[in-house]
């Protein structure tokens, strides 16, 4: 029986289990009144017993089946083969599996291998059989045991609720565990990188050119992994983006919350949100095709030498992209200031703009700062626009008219194309990823703290 059929069957069982549990509870006492919980809870209680053990079994089977099968096959191989080193053994096992499923086989097929493949097929089908049988038996056992436990005094609601709570905990830990997993994998790969390139060279090096020599006699490609030019490039572009986004976003928010008529507001807010929904790759070619040439040409007019890919172009477009983020977070922060503050100020004879400047903005400031920090981490992590508009040259410069490159862009270029998975060049991407992660993490933590502090202010 294949997995899909099995799952469908389980679903049918669950449906039956619900009605069984419900009916049983109604019949067990003298009607719904004498029951501890509502009849539906007894139904769910039986469903839980019908579903969770079999699903657990299936999951465990999924995890352990391949290992057990492999082990059994290796045991069955003649001594000469089973004592092979790891690499060739894996190849052999792959061939056996392919043979069993009728796929192409790389090596010559020997007698032993055909036998092994036959054994593999047999094992596989008996494994399927046992899985189906045991799953169904577990489900039925669960249903009957759970149904038998139902009495009017049985606390089905408490059991169901604690199970639901467990499920919630599992769900939330999935997200957390994934994050932790990603962090650790990045961390371990970075450690491998730092075994090849010293940490201080990476953190303080002023030169970034990750080309490694392919042949020993090649000249000029020893590879330099100095992180500083990437960091300054990232910070330069982020700073330009903030210079564009913060004033415009903030003024937009002030206009929308304090001055705009509700009708205008109801049109303008969704429009701004559309701006936030444009894919960054679209902004990227807008930057590369419209903004960068425009900046180069207008720079040329006043005698400035502007690179055709410049930090300025990327930064400006990134700023435009971030405006909606800044404006909607500031908007929320200003709207969250109680109307009584505004009234209090106006009633003292303050004008609208005095009220905004001296009461509303200071009161909303923590929220606005939090929003800006989130925008900064968004800008630091942004890739597409920079790839397309800022170039790849790792220049160590503070001149916004030159081409620079950022951490994210370098990660992309390091990993594009065919790579060896343990060269310093590839591993460098993980080290950069780790740096990026640390920087944005710190910013997010600060942002969240500020926002939290601000929440306390009015409760």
């Amino acid at each position, binding site marked *: 029986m294949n997995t899909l059929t099995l799952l469908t069957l389980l679903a049918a069982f669950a449906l039956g289990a619900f009605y069984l549990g419900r009916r049983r509870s109604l019949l067990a006492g003298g009607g719904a009144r004498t029951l501890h919980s509502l009849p539906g809870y007894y139904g769910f209680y039986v469903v839980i017993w019908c579903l969770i053990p079999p699903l657990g079994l299936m999951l465990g089977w999924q995890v352990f089946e391949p290992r057990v099968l492999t082990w059994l096959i290796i045991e069955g191989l003649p001594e000469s083969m089973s004592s092979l080193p790891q690499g060739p053994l894996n190849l052999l096992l792959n061939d056996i599996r392919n043979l069993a499923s009728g796929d192409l086989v790389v090596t010559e097929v020997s007698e032993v291998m055909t036998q092994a493949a036959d054994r593999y097929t047999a094992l596989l089908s008996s494994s399927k059989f046992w899985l189906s049988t045991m799953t169904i038996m577990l489900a039925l056992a669960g249903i009957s045991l759970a149904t038998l436990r139902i009495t009017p005094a049985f606390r089905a609601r408490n059991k169901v609720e604690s199970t639901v709570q467990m499920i919630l905990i599992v769900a939330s830990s999935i997200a957390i565990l994934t994050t932790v997993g990603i962090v650790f994998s990045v961390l371990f790969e970075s450690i491998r990188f730092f075994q090849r390139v010293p940490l201080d060279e990476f953190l303080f090096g002023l030169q970034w050119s990750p080309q490694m020599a392919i042949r020993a006699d090649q000249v000029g490609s020893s590879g330099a992994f100095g992180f500083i030019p990437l960091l300054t490039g990232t910070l330069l572009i982020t700073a330009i983006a903030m210079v564009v986004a913060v004033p415009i976003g903030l003024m937009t928010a002030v206009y929308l919350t304090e001055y705009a008529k*509700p009708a205008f507001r109801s049109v303008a807010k969704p429009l701004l949100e559309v701006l936030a929904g444009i894919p960054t790759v679209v902004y990227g070619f807008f930057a590369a095709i419209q903004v960068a040439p425009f900046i180069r040409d207008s720079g040329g007019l006043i005698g400035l030498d502007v690179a055709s890919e410049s930090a300025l172009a990327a930064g400006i477009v990134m700023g435009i992209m971030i405006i909606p983020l800044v404006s909607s977070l500031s908007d929320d922060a200003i709207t969250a200031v*109680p109307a*009584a*503050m*505004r*009234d*209090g*100020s*106006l*009633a*003292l*004879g*303050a*004008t609208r703009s*005095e009220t905004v400047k*001296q*009461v509303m903005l*200071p*009161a909303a400031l923590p929220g606005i700062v939090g929003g800006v920090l989130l925008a900064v981490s968004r800008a630091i992590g942004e890739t597409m626009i920079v790839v397309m508009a800022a170039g790849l040259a790792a220049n160590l410069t503070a001149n916004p008219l030159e081409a620079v490159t950022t951490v994210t862009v370098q990660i992309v270029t390091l990993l594009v194309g065919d790579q060896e998975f343990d060269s310093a060049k590839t591993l460098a991407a993980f080290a950069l990823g780790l740096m990026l992660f640390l920087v944005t993490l710190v910013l997010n933590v600060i942002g969240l703290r500020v926002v939290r502090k601000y929440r306390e*202010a009015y409760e």
Partner: protein
Amino acid sequence: MYGVNEGVAEDLRSGRFGAGFSGAEMLENSAAQRADSPDGAGTIGNIQAANPYMVASGVNVHYGDNHAIRNVSLEIGKNEVIALIGPSGCGKTTFLRCLNRMNDTIESARVTGEITLDGHEIHDKSLDVVALRARVGMVFQKPNPFPKSIYDNVAYGPRIHGLASTRAELDEIVHGSLQRAGLWEEVKNRLHEPGTGLSGGQQQRLCIARTIAVSPEVILMDEPCSALDPIATARIEDLIDELRRNYAIVIVTHSMQQAARVSQRTAYFHLGDLVEVDATNKVFSNPGHRLTEDYITGRFG
């Protein structure tokens, strides 16, 4: 206090007030009909003040479709305190907010009728709303200190109006205002801590200090003592009495005793109507209207 409106509405519908009672019939009439009647015709007693400073005539306020104030005419006199009383939701706050045009800030509110301040129409183009609010100060029903320091809260008004040219003058205004609001002793050592960190009653006195710091000509107080203990209440009442020497004061209160103690005139609102206005001792000793009498003797609900 709940059930007041229902009780009265019930009485009105069943005509339990008796035939000789014109007020009840008047209240039963539709708003449209009433709008035709001359200013203040529905109000009994005397809407005139001895020394009128603000004059409202035929004021109507609509919040969308809700007719919250119906054709109210009332004079507010200099050197006197007028108390606005009435059951919850009858429009006291709404009327108060008309007087310094705070209803402008409510999108759905529509105010019609005439209101003059010292003879000038307050809705007139020539009178700036900002200047109006500096002259007609307001203390809100709920304390709303700014999230600034205590000092800055009080200094806010004087600063925006440029009332002090030196730091010492500003200090003097802040000190004087806090003193008069009865808060100075409690906060003199923590002037630079946030005003939002004060207790509810202290916050309310801070708001009063903030209002008097700009020396308005008329002070509107919306239940200024509802969060205060008897001692602080007594201070505020003394303050009101003192302020009366120079200013015109309107106070909304739910306490009959307070109205009787601090005011010279009392106006009774009911479901958006100004039912009765008269000298305070007249209203409390010999109310002209059955509704007023029921309210002040606590016979509702």
